[in-house]
C-alpha cells in the first residue's frame, strides 16, 4: 500500500516523459504509427495509474489523504536534494492529494482522449512524430506542475508547460503567424514565471522554505501585508498562464496551434493552471484578503471582458479561445472568493465541454481543409452531423442549460458568490452567462445552421474513427459530468475536504432564485442569438450600424494588442536597436577607441618633434638641460630661485 503510494506518482510522471524520449530517439527509425501508439499508450497508462492512485488515496482515512512523497526520505544516509545550499534546501517532493488528483485525472484522461483524436487529426502532418513527442512532453510537465510538493517543482512544471505550449503553438514553424504567436505566448508566460519567482523569494524570506508543508503550515504566523504581496505575485503567474487580464492577449493568438493543442493545452488543462495555483496556495489567500479580492476581481473582469469580445469574433477557434478565457475567469473568480471546490468543479466540467467544443470544431476545420472563418461556413449540420450534435452538447453545457455539465458548476459558482457576499461580482457573472449563451449559440448558428454552406472549399468526407470516438466520449461526459454534484450529493467537496481542511462550503444546494436567474440569463442569450443569427435577420445589419464603434472596439479586443504594441514593444525594440547600433559602437566602444586614437595622436605629435634636423635635436637637449637645472634649483631653493614666484 505504502509502496504503491510512493511508486505510483513516479510512474505516472515518468510514463509521458519516457514516451517523449522514446519518440525522440527511436521514433525516426521506426514507422510513424509507432510514435502515435507510444504516445497514446503512455498517457493511457498514466491515466489508469492515476485512477488507481486516486482510488487508493480516497480510501485512506481522511486525515491521511494528503500524501507527501519526498526525496530524500528522512532516513536517507546520503540525502539528495534538488538544491542544497544550507540554509536553503529544496527537495524532490511531490504532494498527492485530492486537488492534485482531480487535475491529474483530467490531464491524463482528457489528455488521452485528445491524443487519440490527434491520431486522426494530425494524420496529414509531416511533423507527426514531433507532435506526439511534444504532446507527451506537455503532459509530463503538466503532471509535474500539479504533483509538485513545493513551489520550485511547481515552477519547473510551470515553465515546462510554457515550453510545450510554445513548441505546439509554433508547431507549424513555416507559418510566420504561428511563430509570432508562439513567441508572444512564451514571453507573456515568462512574465508570469517571474511573478512566481518573486513570490517564491518572498516565501523563502518569510518562511525559510519552499515546501508546501512548511509554507502553508506557518502562514498564520506571517503578517497579512507580506501574504498579500506573495498572493499578488502568485497571481501574476496565474494571470499570465490562465490568460487573464491584463496578460490575456496571447491566448487568441495561440489558436495558431493545431486544434488538439488548443483543446488540450489552451482549453482543458494548461490555462487552468492559474486556478490550480490559487487553489493550491489557498492558505495564503485565506489569510490575504486583499490578494484574494484582487484575484476575484481580475477573474470576474476577465470573464466579462472575454465574453464581450467573443460576441463579435468570426474565427471559430478565436471565439472558443475567448470563451475559454471567460470560463477560466469564472474559475479564478470562484477561487478568489474562496469557493475552491466550485472553481475545481467548473474546471472539470469545462475541461469536458471545452475540449469537446474544440474537437468538434476541429472536425469541422479538418474537413474544411483548415478553414476557420465562420462566415465561410454555415449549414454544416447536415454535412457533419457528428460535429453538429457534439458541438451542440458542448454549447448547451457551456451556456449553463440543465442538465448539462456546465449548468451545475456555474450554478455552484453563482451560488457561492452570493453566499460569500459578493453581489456585484455575481451580477457581472450572470451578465457574462448571458453573453456566453449568446455568443456560443451565435457561433453554433453561424457554423452549422443559418442557411446554406457559404464556403468555397468542398467539405471532406466524415471524420475518422480516432476523432469520432473521443469526441463522443467527451460529449457524454459533457452531459453527465455535472452530476458529480447534485443536491445533497457533493462528490467534489467531499474529496477536497481534507485538502482545504474544512474551509469548503457545501455545493449542490439549489437556490431557486439564483438558479432561475442564471437559467433565464442563458435563455435570453440563446434567444437573442436565435433572433439575430438563427434566421436571416435584418435586425443584424441594423444593429451592426448602430453599434459600430462598440463593434470595432470588441473586434479589436479593446485594442489591447495595439496598446501593448505601442506601449511596450515599439519603445523596447527601438531602444534596443538604438543601443545595438549607436550606443554600443559609438558610446561605450567609442570611448575606448577614442582613448586609443588619442594615444596614437599624441604619439604622432611627439614624433613630429623628431624632425631629423640635428639642430632641433640639440635644441631639445639644451631645453631639457635648462629644465633639469631649473628643477634642481627649484628643489634646493624653492620657487624663488627659478623665478616661479
Amino acid at each position: 500500500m505504502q509502496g504503491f503510494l510512493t511508486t505510483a506518482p513516479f510512474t505516472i510522471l515518468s510514463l509521458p516523459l519516457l514516451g517523449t524520449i522514446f519518440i525522440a530517439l527511436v521514433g525516426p527509425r521506426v514507422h510513424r504509427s509507432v510514435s502515435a501508439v507510444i504516445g497514446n499508450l503512455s498517457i493511457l497508462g498514466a491515466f489508469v495509474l492515476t485512477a488507481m492512485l486516486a482510488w487508493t488515496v480516497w480510501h485512506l482515512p481522511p486525515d491521511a489523504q494528503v500524501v507527501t512523497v519526498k526525496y530524500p526520505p528522512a532516513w536517507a544516509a546520503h540525502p539528495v536534494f534538488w538544491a542544497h545550499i544550507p540554509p536553503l534546501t529544496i527537495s524532490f517532493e511531490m504532494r498527492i492529494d485530492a486537488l492534485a488528483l482531480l487535475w491529474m485525472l483530467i490531464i491524463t484522461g482528457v489528455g488521452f482522449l485528445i491524443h487519440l483524436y490527434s491520431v486522426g487529426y494530425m494524420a496529414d502532418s509531416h511533423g507527426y512524430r514531433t507532435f506526439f513527442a511534444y504532446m507527451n512532453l506537455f503532459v509530463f510537465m503538466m503532471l509535474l506542475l500539479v504533483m509538485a510538493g513545493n513551489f520550485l517543482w511547481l515552477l519547473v512544471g510551470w515553465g515546462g508547460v510554457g515550453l510545450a505550449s510554445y513548441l505546439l503553438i509554433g508547431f507549424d514553424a513555416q507559418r510566420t503567424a504561428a511563430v509570432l504567436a508562439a513567441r508572444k505566448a512564451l514571453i507573456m508566460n515568462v512574465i508570469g514565471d517571474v511573478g512566481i519567482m518573486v513570490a517564491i523569494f518572498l516565501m523563502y524570506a518569510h518562511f525559510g522554505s519552499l515546501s508546501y508543508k512548511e509554507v502553508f503550515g506557518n502562514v498564520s504566523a506571517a503578517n497579512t501585508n507580506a501574504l498579500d504581496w506573495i498572493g499578488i505575485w502568485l497571481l501574476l503567474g496565474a494571470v499570465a498562464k490562465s490568460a487573464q487580464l491584463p496578460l490575456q492577449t496571447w491566448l487568441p493568438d495561440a489558436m495558431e496551434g493545431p486544434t488538439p493543442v488548443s483543446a488540450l493545452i489552451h482549453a482543458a488543462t494548461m490555462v487552468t493552471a492559474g486556478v490550480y495555483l490559487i487553489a493550491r496556495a489557498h492558505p495564503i489567500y485565506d489569510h490575504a484578503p486583499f490578494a484574494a479580492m484582487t484575484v476575484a476581481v481580475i477573474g470576474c473582469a476577465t470573464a466579462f471582458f472575454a465574453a464581450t469580445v467573443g460576441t463579435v469574433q468570426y474565427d471559430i477557434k478565436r471565439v472558443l479561445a475567448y470563451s475559454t478565457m471567460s470560463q477560466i475567469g469564472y474559475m479564478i473568480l470562484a477561487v478568489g472568493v474562496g469557493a475552491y471546490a466550485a472553481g475545481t468543479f467548473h474546471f472539470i466540467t469545462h475541461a469536458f465541454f471545452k475540449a469537446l467544443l474544440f474537437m468538434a470544431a476541429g472536425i469541422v476545420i479538418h474537413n474544411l481543409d483548415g478553414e476557420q472563418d465562420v462566415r465561410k461556413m454555415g449549414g454544416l449540420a447536415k454535412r457533419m452531423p457528428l460535429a453538429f450534435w457534439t458541438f451542440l452538447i458542448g454549447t448547451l453545457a457551456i451556456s449553463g442549460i440543465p442538465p448539462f455539465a456546465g449548468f451545475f458548476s456555474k450554478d455552484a459558482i453563482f451560488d457561492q458568490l452570493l453566499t460569500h457576499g459578493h453581489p456585484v461580482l455575481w451580477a457581472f457573472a450572470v451578465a457574462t452567462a448571458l453573453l456566453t449563451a449568446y455568443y456560443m449559440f451565435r457561433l453554433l448558428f453561424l457554423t452549422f445552421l443559418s442557411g446554406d454552406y457559404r464556403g468555397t472549399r468542398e467539405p471532406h468526407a466524415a471524420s475518422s474513427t480516432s476523432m469520432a470516438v473521443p469526441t463522443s466520449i467527451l460529449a457524454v461526459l459533457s452531459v453527465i459530468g455535472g452530476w458529480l454534484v447534485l443536491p445533497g450529493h457533493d462528490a467534489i467537496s467531499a474529496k477536497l475536504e481534507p485538502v482545504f481542511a474544512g474551509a469548503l462550503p457545501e455545493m449542490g444546494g439549489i437556490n431557486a432564485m439564483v438558479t432561475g436567474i442564471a437559467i433565464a440569463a442563458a435563455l435570453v442569450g440563446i434567444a437573442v442569438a436565435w433572433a439575430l443569427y438563427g434566421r436571416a435577420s435584418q435586425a443584424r445589419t441594423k444593429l451592426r450600424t448602430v453599434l459600430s464603434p462598440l463593434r470595432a472596439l470588441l473586434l479589436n479586443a479593446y485594442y489591447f494588442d495595439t496598446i501593448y504594441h505601442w506601449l511596450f514593444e515599439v519603445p523596447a525594440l527601438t531602444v534596443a536597436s538604438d543601443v545595438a547600433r549607436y550606443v554600443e559602437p559609438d558610446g561605450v566602444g567609442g570611448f575606448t577607441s577614442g582613448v586609443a586614437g588619442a594615444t596614437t595622436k599624441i604619439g604622432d605629435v611627439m614624433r613630429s618633434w623628431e624632425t631629423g634636423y640635428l639642430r632641433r635635436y640639440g635644441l631639445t637637449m639644451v631645453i631639457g638641460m635648462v629644465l633639469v637645472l631649473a628643477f634642481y634649483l627649484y628643489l634646493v631653493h624653492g620657487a624663488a630661485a627659478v623665478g616661479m614666484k
Partner: protein
Amino acid sequence: MAAPQIPLGDYLTVASALFVIGAIGFLLRRNPITMLMAIELMWNAGNLVFAAFARQFVDMTGQVFVFVVITVAAAEAAIALAIVVMVFRRKRDADVDDISVMRG
C-alpha cells in the same frame, strides 16, 4: 708676492659665458665644423672651471682632468672631422640641415 688673485667668481662667470656661447653656437650654426668648434668652446669652459678650482684648492686633480679632457678632445675632434669628411664626400655640402634622411 703673488700677483693679485682673480676672484673665483670671475672665472666661473667667464666659464659660464663660454659654455652658453658654445651651446648657442651649436644651435645656430649649420656647418658641422663650426658646430664642433662650438662644442670645443663648451668643453673648454669646463676646463676653465677645473683649472680655476684646482688653483683655488691648490689641488692637482683638476688640472689632471683638464689634461685628460684636452687629450680626449683631440681624439674626438679627429673622429668627428673624419666623419664630417666622409659625409662631405657624398654630399659636397656643409649644411647639417641637409643631413636629415631619417626622421619621425
